[in-house]
């Protein structure tokens, strides 16, 4: 009896001793990270049957329980991953945010200073100090971009370094977890199933650490080992073995790292599947913030360089030359090739040459593109968004190289090489934008602030018309990128031009190389209509406009003379023009879509003026008509008579035809010059737009609106007078005798806007394939007011015009213009939007980081509530167990006393 009481007491002492040790261990580890509080589990020892029934035989510690909750652990792990991801994104964003916050490093003030310096230079364009200042501000602008680029590049490489070290950490942790798994199994085996609590804590710590690196999924095995998966179920740890991940060069983009997982040389790329943790955060930051930021600023740099270069090259330097490149050419061979990366795995030989030309910065997007030759055709390809993988377009190149694919303001040029299915290319149109920015002008003389042309009115002009100073539209052909013929020789306009007014509504533009003897241009610009009172634009602003002359067989052919009719009103002869259907097609220069316009049906014997009016009904067509008839070899037959030259012209708007007779009786008094003067003095002729010119021996009659010109010689055939007629369509002179009459129709000049084509149904008016010449001269000017006959305006190269600031003003105009991206932002506006978007991202990341960290604190708190050590609690337990220990010791003591009592009784 006493023995068993002793045993009971002893078991209690031992059990509570253990409990006190567990509590002591808890107190000792109160500040140990990852320690899970433990509890000694008491159990009663089995009862023994006695007469009094089953009697308990004491207490024992059956287990030392680790107090945790696997559900809460999972929660903490996933919150850790989220918080670590957002934390590292926010931390990196803050760096960019602070970079942009510093006014000393921003682009915006540098842009303002650049345009400010340009303002000063515009005010005094020949001042060397002002030009010097402009150069140094331009340098500063480039430096600012460089500075930001350096910082972004530095950040990018620090992100790469971090990715590599994170990868190493992940591998180390994975190996340690596998190792611990193994230790746990063997420890459990050695302790016949008891949990090795310290190892479990250690493993949980390792797993939590791993969760800060990357999002994981933990699945327990039956034997207590834990399997760890990352991404979409890729096993990182399986029991006691682990895989590893590597950071390696991306096949698509060798400048960027990708993550792959595997074992023994067999690796699978899982970059996109990695989420959460610092590794996921770094990848996300690189993809969602850093690369777009580089692209965004790159696009801004490209837009600035492109626009400034374009305008600067249309200006004139202090050395009378065209301005050169201001910044590096955005479409230099090097820059164009740098925008494309061929996949390293493309089939050998590595001979494909692809380049990207920036065509329109207002259509340029900041995304990257992935091109895949998908087959089945050798040149079937698909263009995808490189980040999202969304398909943008599918096309086939048509088998012939070079081939071109126009997209989002750029032209992807497949120059040459064995393109084949499986080929992949990464297109980064804007990534290298900042690093490609550099200042090219380096001498003050090379700044082109003047415009290369100037206009002047002739000193003796008597009308009130004035010519505008003129502006450049472009000095290069957009088709060939060569200088336009007018600017092909340096420091001059070839030819210089003179605009001469034949009367107040008609002018011609002539080659003024020899001012004493201006010559017609080729193609001629004669008989141009002038409308007094409005602004008359002189040349086409459309770089692709073409000029077409009616080249049919009917045009300008003098009809065989007929017997002269002297009826009132005068009878009109037919000009003999054949009937024709003119078809007009337009090709949209951007989409390539063909529009067919309604055909223009020309009945037989139409006047050139009417055909022009009909053509002008089609948008984009500017047709003008004029008639020109030369009269020469005025032969006075010698027989006295009273012959007259009779000119008959159709009336306007249904008015009867009008005839004018100029005396042709006296060869001296009625010289061609006198006839010309008489015709010019006649109000009727004037109102019908007829102009006569004479150099003394011949007479030229012109209708400025393309009416038929009908001339006859009165007098009896016996008078023997004659005159010879020539015209554009009749090279061999047609002789006109007394009592005969002949008519000639007019010619047509048509200016067609970009993409318009015109063809005749037969050869009468226009041939089916009329020849075209460019109508674009690269500059424009306008004349307004009322000119007088003989007034002239000259257009020449602006030699030594260094006081001119027109190009500087045009460059200044770029500040307010919308040139960046589809949003058509101004330079500064684009930068402001960029800053604001980084600000918003940072702001959001800050808020997210706070939210994530408070979620983590909460879930950690909940886990801690289960697993953490509370010293007060442990103190209470100490007291509790100590008292129980004392009590049990008392039981031992009582047992001894009982025994003593019994011995005493026996003694």
């Amino acid at each position: 009896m006493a023995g068993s009481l002793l045993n009971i007491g002893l078991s209690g002492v031992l059990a509570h001793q253990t409990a006190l040790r567990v509590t002591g261990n808890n107190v000792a580890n109160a500040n140990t990270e990852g320690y899970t509080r433990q509890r000694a589990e008491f159990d009663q020892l089995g009862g023994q049957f006695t007469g009094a029934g089953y009697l308990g035989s004491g207490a024992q510690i059956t287990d030392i329980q680790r107090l945790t909750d696997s559900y809460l652990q999972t929660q903490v792990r996933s919150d850790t991953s989220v918080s670590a991801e957002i934390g590292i994104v926010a931390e990196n964003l803050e760096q960019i945010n602070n970079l942009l916050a510093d006014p000393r490093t921003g682009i915006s003030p540098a842009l303002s200073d650049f345009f400010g310096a340009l303002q000063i230079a515009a005010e005094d364009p020949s001042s060397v100090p002002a030009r010097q200042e402009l150069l140094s501000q331009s340098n500063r602008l480039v430096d600012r971009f460089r500075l930001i680029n350096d910082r972004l590049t530095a950040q990018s490489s620090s992100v790469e370094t971090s990715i590599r070290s994170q990868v190493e950490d992940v591998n180390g942790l994975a190996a340690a977890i596998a190792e611990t798994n193994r230790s746990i199994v063997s420890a459990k085996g050695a302790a016949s199933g008891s949990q090795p609590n310290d190892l479990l804590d250690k493993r949980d710590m390792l797993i939590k650490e791993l969760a800060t690196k990357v999002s994981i999924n933990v699945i327990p095995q039956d034997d207590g080992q834990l399997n760890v998966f990352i991404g979409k179920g890729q096993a990182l740890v399986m029991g006691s073995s682990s895989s590893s991940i590597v950071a390696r060069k991306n096949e698509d983009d060798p400048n960027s790292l990708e993550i792959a997982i595997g074992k023994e040389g067999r690796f699978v790329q899982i970059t996109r599947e990695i989420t959460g943790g610092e590794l996921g955060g770094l990848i996300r930051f690189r993809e969602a913030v850093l690369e777009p930021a580089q692209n965004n600023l790159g696009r801004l740099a490209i837009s600035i360089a492109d626009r400034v270069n374009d305008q600067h090259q249309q200006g004139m330097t202090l050395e009378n030359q065209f301005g050169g490149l201001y910044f590096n050419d955005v479409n230099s061979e090097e820059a164009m090739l740098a925008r494309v990366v061929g996949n390293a795995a493309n089939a050998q030989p590595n001979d494909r040459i692809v380049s990207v030309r920036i065509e329109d910065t207002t259509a340029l997007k900041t995304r990257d593109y992935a091109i895949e030759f998908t087959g089945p055709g050798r040149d079937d390809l698909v263009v995808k968004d490189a980040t999202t993988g969304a398909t943008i377009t599918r096309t086939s190149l048509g088998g012939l190289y070079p081939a071109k694919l126009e997209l989002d303001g750029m032209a992807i040029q497949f120059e040459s090489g064995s393109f084949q299915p499986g080929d992949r290319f990464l297109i980064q149109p804007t990534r290298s934008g900042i690093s490609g920015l550099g200042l090219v002008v380096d001498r003050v003389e090379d700044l082109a602030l003047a415009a290369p042309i100037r206009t002047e009115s002739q000193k003796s002009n008597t009308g009130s018309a004035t010519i505008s100073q003129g502006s450049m539209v472009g000095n290069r052909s957009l088709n060939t990128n060569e200088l336009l013929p007018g600017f092909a020789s340096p420091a001059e306009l070839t030819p210089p031009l003179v605009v001469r007014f034949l009367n107040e509504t008609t002018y011609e533009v002539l080659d003024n190389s020899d001012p004493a003897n201006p010559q017609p241009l080729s193609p001629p610009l004669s008989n141009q209509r002038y409308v007094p009172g409005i602004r008359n634009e002189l040349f086409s602003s459309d770089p692709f406009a073409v000029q077409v002359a009616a080249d049919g067989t009917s045009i300008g052919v003098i009809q065989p003379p007929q017997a002269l009719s002297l009826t009132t009103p005068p009878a009109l002869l037919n000009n003999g023009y054949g009937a024709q259907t003119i078809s007009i097609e337009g090709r949209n220069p951007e989409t390539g879509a063909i529009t067919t316009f309604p055909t223009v049906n020309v009945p037989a014997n139409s006047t050139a003026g009417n055909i022009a009016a009909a053509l002008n009904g089609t948008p984009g067509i500017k047709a003008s008509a004029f008639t020109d008839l030369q009269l020469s070899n005025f032969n006075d037959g010698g027989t006295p008579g009273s012959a007259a030259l009779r000119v008959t012209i159709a009336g306007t708007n249904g008015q009867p035809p009008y005839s004018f007779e100029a005396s042709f009786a006296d060869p001296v008094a009625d010289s061609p010059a006198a006839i010309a003067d008489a015709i010019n003095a006649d109000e009727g002729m004037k109102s019908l737009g007829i102009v006569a010119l004479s150099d003394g021996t011949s007479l030229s009659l012109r209708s400025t609106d393309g009416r038929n010109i009908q001339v006859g010689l009165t007098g009896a055939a016996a008078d023997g007078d004659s005159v010879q007629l020539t015209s554009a369509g009749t090279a061999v002179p047609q002789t006109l005798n007394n009592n005969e009459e002949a008519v000639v129709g007019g010619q047509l000049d048509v200016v067609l806007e970009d993409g318009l084509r015109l063809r005749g149904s037969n050869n009468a008016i226009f041939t089916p394939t009329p020849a075209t010449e460019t109508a674009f001269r690269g500059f424009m000017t306008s004349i307004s007011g009322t000119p007088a006959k003989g007034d002239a305006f000259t257009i020449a190269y602006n030699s030594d015009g260094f006081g001119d600031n027109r190009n500087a003003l045009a460059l200044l105009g770029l500040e307010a213009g919308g040139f960046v991206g589809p949003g058509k932002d101004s330079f500064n506006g684009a930068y402001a939007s960029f800053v604001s978007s980084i600000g918003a991202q940072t702001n959001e990341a800050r808020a997210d980081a706070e939210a994530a960290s408070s979620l983590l604190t909460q879930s950690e708190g909940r886990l801690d509530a289960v697993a953490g050590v509370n010293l007060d609690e442990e103190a209470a337990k100490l007291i509790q167990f100590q008292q129980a220990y004392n009590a049990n010791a008392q039981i031992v003591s009582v047992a001894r006393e009982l025994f003593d009592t019994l011995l005493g009784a026996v003694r």
Partner: protein
Amino acid sequence: MRISTQMLYSNGIANLGNAQQEVTRTQQQISSGKKILSPADDPVGASRVLRLNQELEQNSQFQKNVDLAQSRLELEDGVLEGVTEIYQRVRELAIQSGDGILSAADRNSIAQELRSRLDQLKGLANSTDGRGEYLFGGFQNKQAPFEQTPSGSVEYTSDEGRRFIQISSSVTIAGTDNGKSVFMDVDSAGNTICTEGSKGNTSSPPAFITIGQVTDQAKLDAFAPEDMKIVFNDVNSVAPPGPNYSVYTVSDDRPIVTAQPYTPGAAISIEASGVQVEIQGAPAVGDAFFVRTSDKQPVFDTLERFIDGLENVSDTPEGRETFSAMLDTTIANLDNAETAMLEVRTEVGARLNTVEDTRAVLEDNEIILTELRSKVEDLDYAKAISDLSFQSFVLQAAQQTFSRVTGLSLFDQL
């Protein structure tokens, strides 16, 4: 809920840290005076500040341009005032020389004074702006725009360029006037001629044409507005071979005089149009000279023709009649010149007014923009300081309670 001792500490520390962060931020705002410390604090506001800064920068540049434009226009106005005074003096001289009792010596002394006035006028027309640029020099403003040709006449050798200055985002004004519009394009009393050698002439040294005289106004009026060109032909065009010229109309090359032998230095009279000019020097074959009818006469030509008339008046009744007709024309031309000058000065005055108005607008803009920027960017000190004292209070409270709470332990009671 159970709270572990570790958590008690870490939560307390985290809260202290947060409170400290708030205090530091407010302190930073107060010391910088800015509400927005980085774009993330207010992304929209930050981009507005950037835009406002750019506008302010532009505005201050416009203000500089306004100052420059004003000083340039005032300088021009001063020069034009001097020019007006010369016109008035010349007009007085013209009226004085109409006095019948003047002797040849008197006329010569008037001619003398006129010559120096002409030089003075030329000097004013060639004024520079203090930076070595000719005020009336058009685009080619590095070289003197008015040059005396060897024949004595003053020619405008520059262009019609006019430089514009932007003084606000919507206002651009002409900063200069070219010499042609100020001195050359002056309405003349009747049709007159202006002469010019063709730019394609090849003779070296270049032959030049005098300003010429109108000998028969009626014929010229009938001929106008047609222009003439005098072209020197091959020596073999006349017999015996020698220098010869033809005269043509400009518009349709109609011959007026054909292959006329040319005596170097002799006047060329063109009967048909009532004009007489001289070609000086040795014109090369193919050289052309324009004699254009015009209803404008440069003020220099007016003075020169006046001097010419004064020096060459003959004391015959016809001579006196020609002289007095010349005087009438001169006075009428001077009146026109004064009117033209008045127009230019009025225009300059109008531009000065625009400049003044624009200056006021720019100053207003500056105030408005600065205020706007301040609203977005600047700190509300009252609020910030009250925030700071509240946040410091929170921090202090957190510190105190932290030490209280962590100070409690059951172990102390053992």
